[in-house]
């Protein structure tokens, strides 16, 4: 009996098993119940009592309890890389066709695949990695956290029976290190409680403002068996579709009608709230000039960039539209900045982001789509159709002219920079705009390569753009794999710098090859941390700039051939050096995708900027140091 009690305290064995054991040890029914009540964790007792949310009760290993809760919550894919301790999780999927495993061969890739899947599906990306590989995955989880993407990361932790004894691979308390980059983190406390803690993790991840959560489950709990309730996840899903205050909406509608030179900024919360169409309707109804969504922490482009009301990125001072009187910010953290002389109204679905960095004149917490709808209705209720049309026409005339001049400007640049024997990024952008399907999902993980973005069309009926706000590199190829999984019927292209490609490594290509993910991967290969060098040399302008010695940013010598690397990982590809070869190479990539295969285009582009001509680096030969040739 002593053993049984110890087991209950250490491992949290199921209440049923405990009671059975105590009975078998000769205790009477009342004594059994009293003792069991004392020894069973409260959560387990609650579950045992059969929570009202239970859909079914099963007796199984902890690993199975975890995956069955995932399954009932609608999880279809799990991105994973194994350890010994999490064996029961994957054992449970041997006969479970409802959850498809997608293996990644480095934890960063596993996390970024889950992240890309979540961005495109709107569902929570679930990933499991080894506890010792956790720091590998953390880098990419920073992108996930900063961009509010719902991801559940699970690890099998050191068993509660042995943790803390400093055995090999045991490091104390890994959970708190996830604190700054997760919405919530937890360690499961009993086998029986696994479904409950899992459904809580899923709820926290998905509830807006969404984000990554971390769950560690001690390996002995995963292995132990318990009877537990699997819960109906829907009953824990709470709507965060908060409506804005009616009086505020009325005030705002009046301001927007009376404004002389209003601007609307748009950001990721429009994408997250699926408010693209509504925000567009609001802009058109009132002839609002629209800016934002590029850079400054945004990872998506929800407003069609080729729409005549769109003028590009936002700055606090803008030559066009000049002096703004009303600035309406719809879900753009980066654009929530005061413009001189303007009243700033910021509508944000993320309450912690609202007025966090800068003061606002009117802050409204609301679902972005509902806010747009309410404003539209209020505006329509305050002015006749004719008057609104007049207002929109008057206001938008200037913006349309400005937009048209930008189009002309871009054409001029594209034509002008289209010459020469080297491939310039602008030329590549023009070829991509011409060659990619209109419904392509374009996954960008570039630094200097972002100058290509304005030369392509995004949003609305055009291509979908996704990137990361914080630009933590090594995300793109894996994220594109996850994106293709979420949207198999749309073309998916990843576009990454050579530096970015090397941060992520070729490992995501392995997953593309194994799972036949027809993705076109483009490496914008300038053999350099091009923009990083530019920033170091100009912002710091220290000894590297003064001496012309590029200490760390030159990536040549050895020159990486990404097509060969891809081939080694099961993805065919080619190196493109000649501008004239771009078009046929893109066509070959598309053909491979049509045939169901991924493809790699290693595009050798010109370095640009300060120190671009230099291939110098601080050379050193270890071989030369030897006094013994071994």
């Amino acid at each position, binding site marked *: 009996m002593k053993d049984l009690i110890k087991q209950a305290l250490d491992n949290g064995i199921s209440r049923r098993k405990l009671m059975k054991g105590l009975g078998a040890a000769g205790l009477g029914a009342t004594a059994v119940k009293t003792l069991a009540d004392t020894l069973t964790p409260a959560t387990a007792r609650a579950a045992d009592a059969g929570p009202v949310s239970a859909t079914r009760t099963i007796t199984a290993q902890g690993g199975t309890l975890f995956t069955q809760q995932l399954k009932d919550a609608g999880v279809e894919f799990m991105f994973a890389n194994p350890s010994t301790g999490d064996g029961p999780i994957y054992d449970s999927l041997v006969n479970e066709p409802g959850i498809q495993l997608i293996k990644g061969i480095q934890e960063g890739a596993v996390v970024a695949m889950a992240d890309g899947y979540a961005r495109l599906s709107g569902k929570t990306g679930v990933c499991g990695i080894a506890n010792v590989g956790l720091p590998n995955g953390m880098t990419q989880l920073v992108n996930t956290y900063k961009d509010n993407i719902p991801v559940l990361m699970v690890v099998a932790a050191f068993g509660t029976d042995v943790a803390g004894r400093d055995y090999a691979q045991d490091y104390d308390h890994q959970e708190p290190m996830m604190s700054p980059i997760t919405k919530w983190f937890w360690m499961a406390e009993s086998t029986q409680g696994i479904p409950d803690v899992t459904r809580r993790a899923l709820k926290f991840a998905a509830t807006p403002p969404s984000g990554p959560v971390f769950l560690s489950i001690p390996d002995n709990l995963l292995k132990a068996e318990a009877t537990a309730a699997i819960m109906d996840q829907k009953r824990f899903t709470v709507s965060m579709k908060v409506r804005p205050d009616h009086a505020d909406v009325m005030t705002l509608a009046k301001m927007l009608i009376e404004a002389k030179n209003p601007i609307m900024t748009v950001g990721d919360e429009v994408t997250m709230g699926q408010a693209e169409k509504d925000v567009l309707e609001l802009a058109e109804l009132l002839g609002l000039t629209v800016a934002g969504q*590029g850079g400054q922490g945004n990872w998506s482009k929800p407003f069609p960039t080729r729409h005549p009301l769109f003028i590009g990125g936002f700055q606090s001072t803008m030559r066009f539209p000049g002096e703004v009187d009303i600035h309406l910010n719809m879900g753009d953290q980066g654009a929530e*900045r005061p413009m001189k002389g303007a009243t700033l109204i910021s509508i944000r679905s993320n309450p912690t982001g609202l007025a966090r960095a800068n003061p606002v004149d009117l802050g409204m917490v609301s679902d972005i789509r509902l806010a747009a709808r309410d404003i539209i209705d209020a505006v329509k209720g305050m002015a006749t159709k004719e008057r609104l049309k007049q207002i929109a026409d008057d206001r938008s005339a200037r913006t349309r002219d*400005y937009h048209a001049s930008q189009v002309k400007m871009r054409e001029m640049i594209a034509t002008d920079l289209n010459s020469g024997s080297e491939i310039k990024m602008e030329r590549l952008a023009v070829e991509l705009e011409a060659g990619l399907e209109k419904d392509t999902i374009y996954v960008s993980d570039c630094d200097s390569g972002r100058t290509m973005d304005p030369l392509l069309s995004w949003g609305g009926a055009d291509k979908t753009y996704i990137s990361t706000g914080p630009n933590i590199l090594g995300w793109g190829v894996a994220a594109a794999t996850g994106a293709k999984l979420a949207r198999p019927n749309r073309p998916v292209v990843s576009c990454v710098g050579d530096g970015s490609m090397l941060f992520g490594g070729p490992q995501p290509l392995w997953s593309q090859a194994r799972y036949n993910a027809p993705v076109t991967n483009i490496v914008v290969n300038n053999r350099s941390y091009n*923009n990083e060098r530019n920033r170091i040399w100009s912002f710091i302008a220290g000894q590297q700039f003064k001496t012309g010695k590029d200490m760390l940013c030159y990536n040549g010598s050895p020159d990486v051939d990404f097509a060969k690397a891809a081939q080694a990982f099961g993805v065919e590809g080619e190196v493109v050096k000649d501008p004239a070869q771009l078009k046929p190479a893109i066509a070959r990539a598309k053909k491979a995708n049509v045939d169901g295969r991924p493809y790699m285009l290693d595009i050798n582009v010109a370095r640009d900027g300060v120190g671009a001509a230099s291939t110098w680096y601080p050379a050193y030969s270890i071989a030369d140091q030897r006094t013994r040739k071994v």
Partner: protein
Amino acid sequence: MKKYLVAVAFAASVLAIVSVHAQTSPQGPEGAAQGQPGARTPGQVPTTTPAAQAPSPAPPPGAFQQAGPPGALPDGDGKEIVAVACTQCHGPSVFMQLRMGEAAWKNQVYDMVLRGAQIGPDEIGRAIKYMATAFGPGVPFPGPQAPAVTLADGAGKEIVEGGCALCHGLDRIAVAKRAPDQWKRIVDRMVFFGSPLSDDQQKTALAYLSAQYGAPQTAAK
């Protein structure tokens, strides 16, 4: 005596970088002086808005900012475009210390437009010309002197001095030994930036640099 003109190479992308940083840098800290507006009744917006009074948000600690006062732009046709369009993301001191010819300035201004500079097709030509005139090779830079460096004697020394010191100190040449293919790339680029060397002079300069400041040629990259 040579004036230390800030390196032409500096020019090539400093604006691009500033702009990138401006796009990715975090927002300034909270406008502490204004404090929180008092409790607000829904539907009411403060009439004296903090935004209207607030100075531009200060950069967070550690953020890159072009140091020093903005300084006045020299007069010239196109100044009014540059004065406004090129200071929305960064101060003018970023480009005032650069020296480049027209072709290089054109690339630079194009790059800026792709990063969001609000310049139209009808005015871009004037903006480029203004930059190439006000900040072209040979325009004196009122900064610190370059460390005095005497280049090694050899055929082509004067050509190198004339072609390079127009925009930067000769210390930059003497500091590193480079393989011939690297010198070739650098000379080509400097000519693009505005170094006025003829084809023959470029060849002579290249031979001089490879002989005096050369490193063994490594495998072609």
